[in-house]
């Protein structure tokens, strides 16, 4: 595989993670459990959409077919999206959203900490900008994990169930394929296998402090890197893409 193709795939994955999770978080707008939290979750969504924009813009440039950030965000079919499965899972109750966010933030934080040193200058510049924001995201989802885990009997029970339910989607974050191999060899991105043990250790430490059990490893979902999604993805796209499908090329 050529480096150009691998880089395009790689940028799409990073961009799709940010766009789809950002979209899911934006659904909380006006529905947050309290005003401060409503604002916080939407700020996080906004940061993620900002990351998605930068990554899509660069992906379009790398691909060289004249596709814009909007083309990439709105005009692909389900199978062409490469976001990790955990990003597309339903918001559920607030504990579900926090657990999903904490598991993803921890991954994203470790990944972007490495991308800051990417040999690709644009990737490094996007990462240097994004990491400052991801640090805030992680701090927030970590604090909420502690608060809910070590909170009331009910909050503890609920967020433990959230982590148990989400666990089988975490393996998908670390699956590597041919594009990753090219990216790692070119020094553009890190080997995900080097991130996995640190991710596990950090997640375990926070869960322990939150008096929660680390879920048991079992069968793991996978498939996002080849575009195989959960049943939720189609529903997300039907809403996300509605305007561009109904009014092709519309701008405002």
């Amino acid at each position: 595989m050529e480096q150009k193709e691998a880089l395009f795939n790689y940028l799409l994955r990073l961009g799709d993670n940010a766009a789809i999770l950002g979209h899911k978080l934006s659904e909380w707008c006006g529905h947050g459990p309290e005003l401060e939290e409503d604002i916080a979750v939407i700020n996080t969504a906004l940061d993620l959409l900002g990351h998605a924009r930068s990554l899509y813009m660069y992906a379009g440039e790398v691909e060289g077919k004249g596709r814009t950030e909007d083309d990439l965000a709105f005009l692909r079919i389900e199978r062409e999206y490469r976001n990790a499965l955990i990003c597309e899972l339903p918001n559920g109750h607030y504990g579900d959203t926090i657990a999903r966010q904490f598991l993803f933030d921890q991954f994203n934080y470790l990944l972007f900490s490495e991308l800051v040193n990417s040999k690709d200058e644009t990737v490094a510049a996007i990462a240097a900008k994004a990491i400052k924001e991801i640090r805030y995201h992680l701090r927030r989802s970590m604090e909420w994990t502690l608060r809910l885990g070590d909170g009331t009997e009910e909050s503890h029970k609920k967020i433990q169930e959230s982590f148990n339910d989400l666990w089988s989607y975490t393996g998908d974050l670390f699956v590597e394929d041919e594009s990753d191999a090219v990216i790692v060899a070119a020094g553009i991105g890190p080997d995900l296998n080097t991130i996995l043990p640190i991710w596990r250790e950090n997640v375990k430490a926070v869960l322990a402090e939150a008096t929660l059990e680390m879920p048991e490893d079992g069968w793991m979902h996978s498939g996002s890197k080849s575009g195989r999604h959960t049943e939720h993805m189609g529903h997300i796209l039907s809403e996300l893409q509605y305007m561009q499908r109904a009014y092709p090329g519309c701008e405002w």
Partner: protein
Amino acid sequence: MNEEELWNLLDEVMDPEIPVLSLVDLGVIREAKFVNGNPQITITPTYSGCPAMKIMEEDIEAVLQGSGFDEYEVKTVLSPAWTTDWITEKGRKALHDYGIAPPEQTTSDKNALLGHPKEVTCPHCRSRQTKMLSQFGSTPCKALYQCNDCKEPFDYFKCI
């Protein structure tokens, strides 16, 4: 017009969300120069998803047009990433007078070293007895604090 006058002109462009702070004082304008006689302005976003970027760009274009420039370029760069250290002394004062606590420069306070929220001075009564209510405030660049003494909530321009 020379470069110094160009900078002075840009100092008239205010942040759309914080209308007392100029884009120059915010540190968003990284470069202002003339290329073949036409202004070339380089800006950098405070936050990746900052929705004000487009408006800032248009506001800059408006003052350039107002000064009779027909041809100009406003370009965006991501690197080096914006930091609150780029807010000028004048900008910090403007924030404070507006009721927004400017970013705390020192990281020597014990709280920050232990990973806790920083000690922030209340912009209303100058008390150091304040607490963080939320990491995220009314815009991505601010956190929400409250003063334990005068009880007023206030925005804190967070350090990045």
